[in-house]
């Protein structure tokens, strides 16, 4: 029986999961919104994967022996799924991308709250940069602006391609961008131009902040949720004067990377799809052991505590 590996990438906006075989081929994949509920999103996505396998008639052949999690909720979901590997997004993305583009030198990544640039040399990550804690110019910024304009976020890219004259919008800060946007609309800019302006602003913001001082060499791969937006891709190509590759699975790279890491970990453990029937809750509490008042998170599975974290010292009483 062949072996399979599950990779789950739980981001702030979307949750991605894949199942791959021993040769890193993705056989099942799923992409859903996290909706600020990583536990529910994980249950849903595991269930969806199972359904997809049933539809394809391969559910009996599935033999998942390794699980990896990445993304901002990696720790929580990692203990939910009892995964072998819990890895940060940078490494997961780099490994996932390298498995598809072995000659990649630069990875541009814009996700829901993070944006990062990863520089690769001879197949090894040598440098990276991430946005500061502010989420300006990321997916969260685009989705709030789409809402303001009454447009679905999925349509932003297509609409922006219709424009040849993007409005100038400052994407440095979401608050400023909003007032800029209102102003542009009020003086008569069309919606297409404004949306194109937004996409362009994301690119210039990215290159000025995250990409600052980095040498961008070919081959350039653009990924993360925002890479699905063709407008942003177009302005990246214009600004960099380079071909920018967007894989059809660009949103799955993190999940793929962490599944590969799970395979390489050589720790095998049979994974069961019944996770969606289990009851998971988390409880946050403030420790009263000392005046640091650490926020302690406890994860319960069917009422039994399975994991806890958050305390800075051994003093925690709760």
């Amino acid at each position, binding site marked *: 029986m062949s072996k399979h590996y599950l990779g789950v990438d739980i981001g702030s906006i979307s949750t991605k999961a894949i199942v791959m075989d021993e040769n890193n081929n993705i056989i099942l994949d799923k992409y859903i919104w996290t909706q600020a509920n990583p536990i529910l999103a994980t249950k849903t996505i595991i269930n969806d994967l199972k359904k997809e396998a049933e539809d394809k008639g391969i559910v009996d052949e599935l033999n998942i022996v390794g699980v990896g999690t990445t993304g901002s909720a990696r720790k929580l979901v990692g203990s939910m799924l009892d995964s072998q590997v819990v890895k940060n997004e940078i490494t997961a993305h780099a490994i996932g991308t390298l498995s598809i583009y072995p000659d990649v030198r630069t990875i541009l990544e814009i996700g829901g709250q993070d944006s990062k640039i990863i520089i690769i040399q001879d197949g090894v990550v040598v440098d990276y940069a991430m946005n500061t*804690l502010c989420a300006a110019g990321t997916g969260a910024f685009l989705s709030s602006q789409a809402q303001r304009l009454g447009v679905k976020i999925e349509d932003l890219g297509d609409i922006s391609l219709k424009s040849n004259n993007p409005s100038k919008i400052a994407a440095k800060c979401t608050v400023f961008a909003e007032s800029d946007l209102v102003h542009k609309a009020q003086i008569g800019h069309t919606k297409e131009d404004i949306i194109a302006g937004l996409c362009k602003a994301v690119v210039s913001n990215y290159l000025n902040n995250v990409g600052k001082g980095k040498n961008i060499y070919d081959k350039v791969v653009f990924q993360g949720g925002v890479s699905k937006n063709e407008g942003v891709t177009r302005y990246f190509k214009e600004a960099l004067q380079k071909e920018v590759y967007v894989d059809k699975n660009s949103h799955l790279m993190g999940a793929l990377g962490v599944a590969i890491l799970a395979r390489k970990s050589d720790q095998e453990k049979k994974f069961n799809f019944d996770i969606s029937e289990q009851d998971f809750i988390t409880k946050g509490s403030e420790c009263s052991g000392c*005046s640091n008042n650490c926020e302690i998170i406890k994860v319960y599975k069917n009422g039994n505590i399975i994991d806890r974290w958050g305390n800075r010292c051994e003093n925690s009483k709760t």
Partner: protein
Amino acid sequence: MKIGIPNAMLSHKYMVLWESFFKSLDFDVVISSKTNKEILENGIKYSNDESCLASKIFLGHVQDLHGKCDYIFIPRHCSFKNNDVACVKFNALYDICNNTFNNLKIVTCDFDYNRGKKEISEYLNIGKSLGRSYFKTFRAYIKAKNEYRKYCNNKYENQNEILKNKNKKDNNILIVSHPYITHDEILGRPIVNYLEKMGANIIYADIIPEKVKGDLWSNISKNIYWKYSKELLTGIELYKEYIDGIVFISVFSCGPDSLVTDLCIRKIKNIPCLNLVLDELNSDTGMQTRLESFVDVITYKKKAGAINE
């Protein structure tokens, strides 16, 4: 009589000197507790919004000492030999505290070389203002100064000794940040602990000998302005051949660091650098992602290097 020393800002650097000085003058020394959430919150409450996080924490420490001692020692640091200056925050601390807290008795002095105020005469003034004789104060100063010098050199030698015996496979990470950030229980400590948990060896750029020959810092840039930034750059130069990565830590909204860190990252070419800026609303998750991936980068880079060799 009790003299209180806030355990923040430059105390992280000069504590040995100050404690010894006051003890030799027959005072009891009270040191405020290590920074905790309560001190941080008090500091934020008493501070101006625009202050940097480190100086906010300082006010929290002053509040912590308030009422527990007769005098609180808050010196002013302005300028030093060779045109060195300190950040204006250090000039202002005495006045800020004096204006913020009611009934606060402060012992102060003015380290302002450019205005003709020598370090030794400032210490002598402290002794005088507390009613100690000239000779007693003078002896206390010399003794404290010697202890401080010994302490600095010992720390440096220890770190050097450890470095020389390090295994090449280990990840040696240099922490470049002011001592009041690196060694603060809330600011730098969690970062250092997290890196150590991931198996890194921590080397501190703020540990340098008391006197360093030549202006090592000028190898990075000739136009550094602040004394304490120069010392950190000296640290980078001293340790650069032993390290695999540099983590810069600064606090929002530190002016000098925002310039110097950026400059360093541009100038330092062959060593991976990570820049962390701390503020009041830190989430550990964002920090951990950055630290984890940084250690990954160093580890993978080393592995690849080993294969190529």
